C-alpha cells in the first residue's frame, strides 16, 4: 500500500513538474512529406509563441534511435508512419495528417492520453454541405474503390438522414472509371468525390472531371487541389487549420483532460470554383456564407 502511495506521489510529481512547468517541451515526430514539414513548421512557430520548446524528428523507413531518448512533455506525430512509431512511447501524443482509410487498414493499439486527428471530414458535414449548396439536388453519386466500399452502408444511412439519396457504383480498376461514370451520371445530380486512391489520383482526375463536366454534374471533392482542378466545391482542412487543432489538443492533454481517441477535423474550409460553377449555370452561395452555415450545422 505504502509502495503504491509512493509511486502515485512520484507520478503525480513528475506529471505536475512537466504539465505545470512554464515551458513544456513538445517533440514533433513527422514523416518526410511536404505537408508534414509544413505543419511541423507551423507548430514550431505556435509552440514558441506559447513559450514552449520543441524538437523535431523525421521518421523514414527506419525508426530513429533517438526517438525514445528524446525527452518531452508530449509528442505530436504527423503522418501515419509517425503515429505508428510513437504509439507506445507512453507520453501524451497528438497524431495528425492521418486518413481514416489508413487507420482502418492498420488499426493502432490502444494508447492512453493519445488522440489522432483524422483528415477525413465527418459524413454529416458532407451531407450538410450538399444540402446547403444544391438545395434542389438530392441524388448524390459516389464512385467507391476498395477503400470506400466498406463505408457505403454508413454513408447511405447518414445521407438518408438529410434527405439525400446516395447512388454508389463500385470501381475495381482505374480503367473502368469512365464507363462506370457513364452508368452512374444519368442517375445523379451531384458527384461526391471522397478520398480513394484508386478512384481519385493524378491520372484519373482529368477523365473524371471532363466526363462529369460534359454531363453537367458538379463534383464535390475533398481537397484544395481538387477544387482548383475543376471540382465545383471542396471541403477540406488546411495545414494551418490542422495545426490549430493539434495545439488545442496538446493543451487539453497537458492540462490532464481526456481526449477522444479519434477526432474529425474541427476547422475546415469550403472552396468554390466560381468559374466552373458559372459555366455549369449554378448560382451558389458565397464561400464564406457556405462555410458559416456549415459551421452552424456542426
Amino acid at each position, binding site marked *: 500500500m505504502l509502495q503504491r502511495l509512493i509511486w502515485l506521489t512520484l507520478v503525480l510529481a513528475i506529471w505536475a513538474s512537466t504539465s505545470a512547468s512554464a515551458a513544456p517541451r513538445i517533440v514533433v515526430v513527422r514523416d518526410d*512529406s511536404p505537408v508534414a514539414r509544413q505543419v511541423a513548421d507551423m507548430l514550431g512557430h505556435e509552440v514558441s509563441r506559447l513559450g514552449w520548446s520543441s524538437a523535431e524528428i523525421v521518421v523514414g523507413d527506419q525508426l530513429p534511435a533517438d526517438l525514445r531518448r528524446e525527452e518531452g512533455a508530449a509528442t505530436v506525430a504527423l503522418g501515419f508512419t509517425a503515429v505508428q512509431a510513437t504509439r507506445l512511447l507512453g507520453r501524451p501524443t497528438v497524431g495528425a495528417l492521418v486518413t481514416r482509410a*489508413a487507420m482502418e487498414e492498420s488499426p493502432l493499439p490502444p494508447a492512453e492520453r493519445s488522440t489522432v486527428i483524422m*483528415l477525413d471530414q465527418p459524413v454529416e458535414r458532407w451531407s450538410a454541405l450538399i444540402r446547403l449548396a444544391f438545395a434542389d439536388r438530392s441524388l448524390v453519386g459516389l464512385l467507391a474503390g476498395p477503400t470506400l466500399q466498406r463505408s457505403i452502408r454508413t454513408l447511405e444511412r447518414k445521407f438518408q438522414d438529410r434527405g439525400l439519396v446516395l447512388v454508389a457504383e463500385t470501381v475495381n480498376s482505374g480503367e473502368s472509371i469512365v464507363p462506370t461514370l457513364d452508368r452512374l451520371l444519368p442517375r445523379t445530380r451531384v458527384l461526391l468525390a471522397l478520398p480513394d486512391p484508386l478512384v481519385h*489520383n493524378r491520372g484519373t482526375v482529368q477523365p473524371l*472531371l*471532363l466526363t462529369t463536366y460534359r454531363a453537367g454534374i458538379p463534383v464535390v471533392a*475533398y481537397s484544395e*487541389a481538387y477544387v482548383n482542378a475543376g471540382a465545383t466545391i471542396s471541403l477540406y482542412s488546411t495545414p494551418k487549420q490542422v495545426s490549430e487543432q493539434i495545439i488545442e489538443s496538446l493543451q487539453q492533454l497537458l492540462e490532464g483532460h481526456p481526449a477522444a481517441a479519434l477526432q474529425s477535423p474541427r476547422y475546415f474550409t469550403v472552396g468554390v470554383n466560381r468559374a466552373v460553377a458559372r459555366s455549369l449555370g449554378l*448560382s451558389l452561395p458565397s464561400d464564406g456564407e457556405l462555410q458559416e452555415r456549415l459551421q452552424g450545422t456542426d
Partner: protein
Amino acid sequence: MSKKPILVLVALATARITFAAGSPAEPFFDELPVVLSASRLVQPVADAPAAVTVIDRETIRASGARQVQELFRLVPGFVVGYRNGHEPSVSYQGLADGYVRRLQVMIDGVSIYSPVYGGVDWRELPIAIDDIERIEIVRGPNGASFGANAFLAMINIITREAVGHETGLTLNAGRDGIADWNARHSGGDGNLLYRISVGQRADNGFDAVSDNSRTGFMNLRANLRLDSTEEVAASVAASNGSGQIDENFVRPQTFENYHGNLRWTRTTDAGSEFWLQLNHAQRHLTEDQHYLTRMPGIPGILPAMDLPVDMAYKVEATRDEFETQWTAGSTSALRWLGGGQWRQDAVRSPGLFDNPGWLRNNLWRLFANAEYRLSERLLLHAGATYEHPSLGDSGLSPRVAAIATLAPGHSLRFSVSHAQRNPTPYEESTQHGYAVPDALREAVAAIPPEKLASLPEPYKTMIQQTVYRQFAMASGGLVSEKIFSADIAYQAHLPALHLDGELRYFHNRITGLIYTFPISVPTFTGLKNDSWDFRNRDDAHVQGIEGSLNWSPWAGGQVNVAATHTRIRSSNLDANYSATVPDRTASVLLRQQLPADFAVSVGYYFVGPMRWLSGGDPLPASERFDLRLARTFLWDGHRTELAAIAQNITDRHYPDFFDYLVARRLAWLQLRYEY
C-alpha cells in the same frame, strides 16, 4: 506538317514528367492538374456578349444528321443548300453563293476558312460527326474575338477529348449509295491521353446529276501532361477523297487535306491560362481532265474542229499560324483574355491565277476581351481585335455588350459590334481562264479581222463564249467589307422549368459587298468576251427577329425550336442580294425517350422563298420532316444502338439551289457500337 518539332517537344516533355504514384496516405494534399481550365470551360449562353447557339452531342444524335452541315438547319437564321451532292453551302442571313465567305468556321478554335475562295469545304472535314463534342455558333459578327471573316456569324466545332478507354464504331448504310463508317478509340493513362478516329463518308448525291463523292478521313489527338500546370496537346488530321461535279459536263475532282496543331498550355489556376500554338494546314485539289470538244465551225470562215480542253486544274493552298492567348481572372469579377496571331496563307494555282508561283498573304492581329461583373444585375463586355492583313484593310473590330438581369433567370442583352471581311485571293487576283489550243488560235488568226468583227449570230457568241474564254479577270484593289451590327435580346434561363429561350432583334448595316462585276476582256480572237471582275459596290441593311427555345417539358422529352423573320434592303447593283434572304425560316426538333430503350425524334425544317447568288434558281418555300427511331441494347455486354433514319420522310420534291437539283427522301440504317 513537319514532324520534327512534335517529336522534339514530345521527347522534351517525356523527359520532364515528374509524377509519381500518389501517396495513398495523403490524397488530401496531392497536387492535381487544372483540368477544367479557362479554355475548356463553356461560357453560359446567357453571359455571352452575342447571340450563341450550342448544339450538343445529344442534339446531334437526335437530329439524325449524317454530315456536319445538316446540323445548322437547327440554328435560327441558317440555311443549308447543295450546289451538288457534295458541295453544301451553309449560310446565315443570306448574301451567299456556293462559297459562303461571310462565315468564319473553326475546328477547336483553328480556322478552316478556305485560303483561296473563302468559305468552307464541308465535305472535306477530317472529322466524323461522332468526333464532335459540341458546336458553338455565334450569330452576328464576332470580329472582336476572332478577327476578319467572323462577319455574319461564326461556327466553332469542338471535338471530343480523350477521357479514358473507349472504342466505338458507327456504320451508316442506305439507298443512294450511303456508305459511311467511323471507328474511334481513346486510351492512355495518367499523363498521356490519346484519341484516334478514322472513317469515310460516301453517297451518290442527287438523282439528276452525276455527283457521287467519297471522303476518307482520320484524326489523332494526344494530350501529354508535363506536370500539374503544363500540358502539350498535339493533333494531326487528314482527309482525302474524290467526287464529281456535273454542270455542263462531268468534272472529276480529287482532294487531299492535312492539318497539324501543337499547343503548349500553362494553367496556374482555374482562372489563369496561357497557351502558345502552331498550326499548319495544306490542301490539294485537282480536277485533272482532258477531253475533246467539237467546235461546229462557221461556214466559209472556220472549219469544224475537235479541240482538246485541258482541265488540268490544280489548287494548292497552305496555311501556317502562330497564336498565343492569355486568360486571367476567371474567378473574379473582372475576367479578361488577350493574345496575338500571325498567319501566312499561300496559294498556287496556275489555272486560277495565271501565275506558276505561290501567292502569299500574311496577317497579324492582336486581340483583347474583358468581362466585368459590375453588380449581380449587370455584366459588361468590351473587346476588340486589331488586324493587319496583306489583303484587305488594317483596322479595329470592336464590340461592347451589356447584360442586365431583370429578375433571376430573365435578362436583357444589348450589343454593338463592328467587323470586316477581307477579300479572298480569288476575288483580288484571279486570272481564271483556259489555255487556247494552237489549232484554234491559228485558225482564228487566219480570219481577216473585219470578217471576225462582223460575224453574224450565233457564230459571234460561239466565238466569244468558247470554253477558252477568260472567265474572270480581277483588277484588284478591293477593300474589306464592313459590318456594323446592333442587337437587343431578351433571354430566359429557367432551370426549374427546364427551359432556355431567346428573342432577339438585330439590325446589320453592311457596306462594300464584294461581288462579280461584268467586264469585257480581249481574247485571242481579237474580239472582246464577257468576263468578270470583282468590285465593292453593294450595301445591304438586314434586320429581323430571331427566336429560339429549348425546353424539356417532361421526363425524357425535349423540344428545340428556332424561328426567324428577316427583312433586307440592298442596293442590288451587282447581284440581287434582296432575294438571298428567306423572309422566314423555322426548325423544330422533338425528341422523346420511349419505354424499352427506344428513342424517337422528329425534325421539321422550313425555309421561305429565296435564291442563292452565282446562278442559283429562284426557290419556292420548302419544308421537310426528318424522323429517327432508335433502340439501345446491350450486345455482348456492350452498348449498341440501332437506328432507322429518314430525311424528308414525306418525299416532298423541292429544288435545292438549282431547279434541277431536287431533294428527295433519303433513308438509312445506323449501327453504333461502343466497346
